[in-house]
């Protein structure tokens, strides 16, 4: 399973870093999302919460990929 983040859509709200700090951080300069672990081993529920919480719909979970 993989997470992808669209940095063009990202508006730097920080919701992902707030709800799933193990998976997401924000760029120090422009606040946009940084993926800490694109490959998802655990924390699927936190990842789903982040996808849902993102106001810019910039996050996706691809369950078909390893």
């Amino acid at each position, binding site marked *: 399973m993989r997470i992808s983040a669209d940095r063009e859509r990202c508006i730097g*709200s*920080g919701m992902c*870093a707030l709800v799933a700090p193990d998976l997401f951080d*924000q*760029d*120090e300069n*422009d*606040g*946009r999302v940084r993926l800490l672990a694109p490959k998802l081993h655990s924390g699927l529920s936190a990842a789903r919460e982040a996808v849902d919480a993102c*106001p810019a719909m910039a996050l996706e979970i691809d369950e078909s990929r390893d």
Partner: protein
Amino acid sequence: MSQTVPIPHGLPTERDASPFDPPREITRLREARPVSPLVFPDGHEGWLVTGYDAVRQLMADTRFSSRQDIGIVHALDNIPGMPAATEPSPQIPGLFIAMDPPDHTRLRRKLTGAFTVRRMRQLEEHIIDIVERQLDEMARLTPPVDLVKEFALPVPSLVICELLGVPYADRATFQDNSAKFLVKNPDLDEKMAAYGAMTTYLAELVMSKHAAPGEDILSDLARDDDLSIEELTGVAFLLLLAGHETTANMLALGTFALLEHPEQLAELRADPDLLPDAVEELLRYLSIADIFYRYATEDIELGGETIGKGSTVVVSLLAANHDPKRFDHPDTLDLHRKARGHLSFGHGIHTCLGQQLARIEMRAGFEGLLRRFPTLQLAIPADEVKLKTDMNIYGVHELPVSWTEAAR
């Protein structure tokens, strides 16, 4: 779909259910027709969106433009002396809340780095210090005192002043003018004078940052050659206004709501770990920034209705956050509820830039206030608390409180 509820003429605003719940007519409308036609005071037939799903969908769709300069955005407020708009308003430089991509993107990205979760956590201890100092001052007063004046307004004002590099000594200027600017049906001359005074003050301030930059957000922006003085002034206006009026109203109205729900308050006092969820629930329940406008740039389907190109569309975040389809027993304050997913900071590209700051201010504010004032109570009957139904951001004008002992 039931059509038994008549199409509203103007926006219902009277808090006839409780000081905290949506007006009854808004609740009825959401049940009957969550995307409803709305007749504006000038006769325009636009739309009012009250259902959670529809509001969320609308705010994520930039075809619903935030610009005021494409077509006429019809007003709900009736400003005496203000003629009905006959042409679009010009865009105000720097006011990115009223822009679409790519102009919005360009300005917002200059700021998002300053409001990250990490930066705000670094500020947390300092914000707690500010709260404690303000509570020290309040504890020295003889009750009853006005919580708005002594606590709710000073705390976020101090924080945003420091972050932006605005001298706190100038607070009378920006607090008074911000308040005048947020009056729903103001005297037109007074509103223009307040706006003029704010922009003149801020233009001078950003020029001084240009000449001698310091360690603050406005100085960082002033170092950016890509921004004009006019844009800097607009950005400063937006950040200063949004940075103190919103959290101030949350702290005061939130305290009022807690005092009116003593069992919930007792649970919160007993278990401070409940605070993060309590803040989210208060944000949802109170939805102090309620009404937002959009302009339909084309015909758009929403919730089974067709919103015609050129329509003014109004959303009620309060109504959406009280939608039983999304939140069980929505008109009940339940601090144990997982209220995340509320729309109080908006949704889509204009989502509140300062939301992570606001969360920390509210956690620190409510935690400190409840700990230091264990016997805090209203000093007047609840139905005499003056509600801000006349303002664009909801809250209380004053909250007289008293206590029998203050803790160190």
